[in-house]
């Protein structure tokens, strides 16, 4: 070797390695999470559009968003991956090596997805003129192919927390928390997507040019709220399933989440959840006919939410309060389950001055909650990067070892030269 290629481990200046990886990762998962949900919803909206025109416009809008942010989101993923390779090389090489076959499948699915998504968006009208059903099928296939990609990435993410020693790389995918994480994340994406659609509708309503499409923006608020809030009510259940699997496969990791050094994140998560639930209730108050129970519910719902936050460290109590909160909100919103109730939702008489800022705030809160969920999962592994297999210390040792091995080789070569 004419010269030594080894270098000390890269230390990202000012913010450190973890935050350097975290920033593009978070930006990426917000865009990617929204895109996944939108891609899954678009064909459903379009199908509903067969009977209500606004749904078709919404389907087009969310597909346009997906296509527009696609490159930015993918480049953020590239930046994230490059930072991972540079700053955490041992973990990155290891995990990709463990998932090489699923990655091949996921990449193929993603590439195929292009073949369906691009005609779906760029030839929207020409294809719909020939057959709306064929167009919907195109969107559905694109969405299903995207799900394959997402499922494999969830497999890698879950494996890092609950690794198994599978005989093949496919077995690694089938680790204890894979499916529960995939479900929890998918519903989390629906929560975020729904509230973001509602927030977008609320934002557009306040623009000077809103008068022409006021009805459509109100429709966005309504559909977004229904989608986001509906998914939010499912999250305690999917969260319970996920938490149970973590508890079963990695009890110490679960303890670390609720009682460890990063427990503040769990408090933050439940605070955001409580704010979303209470905020969603307040957003619909103008629609619900007031009765003698309303006043009591106005106090009980925030009260139970506060108690839930306070009991984060006590799992059983917190869960009971969370389900009580869900029941109370469902009880409060029961008038909406009738047809007349849904029709009144976000119609001008029930739309007070605080509704727009509240819908916007809920959009932001839903994004923050999605990010916090991801961060909690990452911190549950600390100090490991792949739990019980590779630690942050291994990353540091690897660099020293490679430098030492080069020095050893040089020294052996020098001794041989001297002997000769």
């Amino acid at each position: 070797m004419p010269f030594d290629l080894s270098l000390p481990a890269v230390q990202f200046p000012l913010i450190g390695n973890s935050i350097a990886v975290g920033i593009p990762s978070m930006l990426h998962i917000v865009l990617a999470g929204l895109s996944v949900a939108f891609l899954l919803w678009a064909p459903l909206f379009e199908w509903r559009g067969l009977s209500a025109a606004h749904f078709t416009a919404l389907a087009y809008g969310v597909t346009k968003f997906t296509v527009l942010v696609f490159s930015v989101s993918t480049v953020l993923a590239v930046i994230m991956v490059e930072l991972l390779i540079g700053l955490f090389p041992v973990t990155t090489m290891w995990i990709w090596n463990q998932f090489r076959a699923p990655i091949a499948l996921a990449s193929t699915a993603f590439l195929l997805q292009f073949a369906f998504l691009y005609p779906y968006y760029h030839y929207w009208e020409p294809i719909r003129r020939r057959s709306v059903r064929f167009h919907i099928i195109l969107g559905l296939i694109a969405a299903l192919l995207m799900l394959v990609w997402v499922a494999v990435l969830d497999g890698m993410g879950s494996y890092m927390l609950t690794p198994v020693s599978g005989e093949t790389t496919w077995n690694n995918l089938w680790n204890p928390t894979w499916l529960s994480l995939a479900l929890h994340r998918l519903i989390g994406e629906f929560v975020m997507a729904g509230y973001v659609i509602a927030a977008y509708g609320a934002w557009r309503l306040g623009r000077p040019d809103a008068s022409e499409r006021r009805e459509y923006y109100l429709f966005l608020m309504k559909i977004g709220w229904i989608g986001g809030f509906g998914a939010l009510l499912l999250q305690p259940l999917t969260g319970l399933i996920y938490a149970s699997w973590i508890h079963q496969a990695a009890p110490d990791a679960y303890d670390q989440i609720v009682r460890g050094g990063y427990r503040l994140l769990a408090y933050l998560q439940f605070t955001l959840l409580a704010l979303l639930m209470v905020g969603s209730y307040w957003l619909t108050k103008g629609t619900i006919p007031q009765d003698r129970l309303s006043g009591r519910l106005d106090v009980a719902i925030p009260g139970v939410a506060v108690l839930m936050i306070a009991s984060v460290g006590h799992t059983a109590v917190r869960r009971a309060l969370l389900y009580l909160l869900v029941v109370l909100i469902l009880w409060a919103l029961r008038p909406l389950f009738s047809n007349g109730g849904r029709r009144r939702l976000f119609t001008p008489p029930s739309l007070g001055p605080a509704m727009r800022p509240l819908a916007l705030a809920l959009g932001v809160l839903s994004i923050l909650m999605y990010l916090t969920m991801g961060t909690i999962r990452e911190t549950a592994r600390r100090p490991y990067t792949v739990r019980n297999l590779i630690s942050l210390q291994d990353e540091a040792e690897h660099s020293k070892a490679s430098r030492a091995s080069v020095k050893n080789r040089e020294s052996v070569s020098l001794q041989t030269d001297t002997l000769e």
Partner: protein
Amino acid sequence: MLLEPLEMPLLFGRIAIATAALSHTLFATIIVGSAFMGAAIETLGYVRRSPAFERLARLIGFSLIFSTATISFLGVILVFCLNIFWPHFWSTLFRIMFWPILLEAVFFLGEAVFAYSWYYSWNRLGGSQGKRWHIAMGWGAAVCSYLAMLMIDIVASYMLTPRAPEPFWQVIFNPTMAYLHVHRVFGNLVWTGFALACLCAVAWLRARASLDAGFYRWSAAVCVLVGFGSLLIMPAIGYQYLLQLRYTEPQAFHVLMLGGRSWLFNLVALLYSLLIVLGSWYIWRIVRRAAPPESVSRLILPCSLAVLVGAGVLFAMPYHVQHLPLVADLTDAVVNPLGKMQPHKYFAISALVFFGLTNWIVLSGSFSRHWAAWRYDTDLASDRTSPVLILAIGLCAMLTMLSMGWARETARAYNGYLIYGVMTLTDEQPTYQPADRALSARPSDTPP
């Protein structure tokens, strides 16, 4: 490194990486070229108040965002492949090139943001001020894509002519960096120009309205003008690049020029000649149709075309005949005296460039008002040969890009190197077959 062996031949990994890298390169080069062409053509359209330029810029904008989406995905695939198939090489190179590779991704992000904003705000930014902002966005995309390419050129050139990783400036300014970069800038314009011309040619063939057919015929010619013009500059830059390689890594130079991979360089020469000849034939078709009767170009073009065919044949001739695949079965001859570089090929390439330039000047002249070349009503329906010629040119340009990329990579790999002189292909062997147990041990198994 702590990896389970892949238990497959090294060749599989080489094929996977080559496929991922070459497909990535094809789209990546289009991004740089189309960002510059799109911005320049929109600027021209604004200055000349020409709707045709505006429409062409928009067409280029669409191809740019389509390429951006595709390339970002193919980039992820390439990184996946490198991590899985060549982890030792990739982790070593990545540590040395951490900042250039990271900056490349950041500039590419900038390109994506500018390009999408540029394309999707086309109708929204009205008025003179709005249009200027719009043009500025196009140039923003062009500058970002250029900087991203500069970063990648640092990495690519380093693999062929590496230097010690510290101090870092000698990594960046390694001996072939500047030459490779300039070569690729013009190479991108060649490929993009011809690829966009192909798009226009397809649209021309499919167009039903004569107005559309006329527009696409004109657009194809504009794109050919850019591609053909850049093509003429390539030999001078390529010569300097090879000269530098000869002084820095003579063994790699020998492999390409006289050694086992010289046939690949002959293939590049053949494709280059074909590009010049087919391009000139396309120009001749324009001249025949539209040049004024008294125009001297009617005399120049046929003569020029005849000279170019002869020069092209000479330029593509091999010197070491035995290096051509399968030829050893046909003849015992070792060398072909006509294929000698000096003086034959120098004369040939000079003729190709000189007469090619003459034809390019004629093509430029066809845009003048004295010619009827671009009137929309002139024999549009009957001319099917010109678009087919453009498609053939595009195919040759694509093959040239692929074979040139392969030539550069094989100059290292043929001698067994991943990073020239310092890291060999056999260093990657443990990734495929375990050399000893330690290589496949998990980190937690290693004693403290």
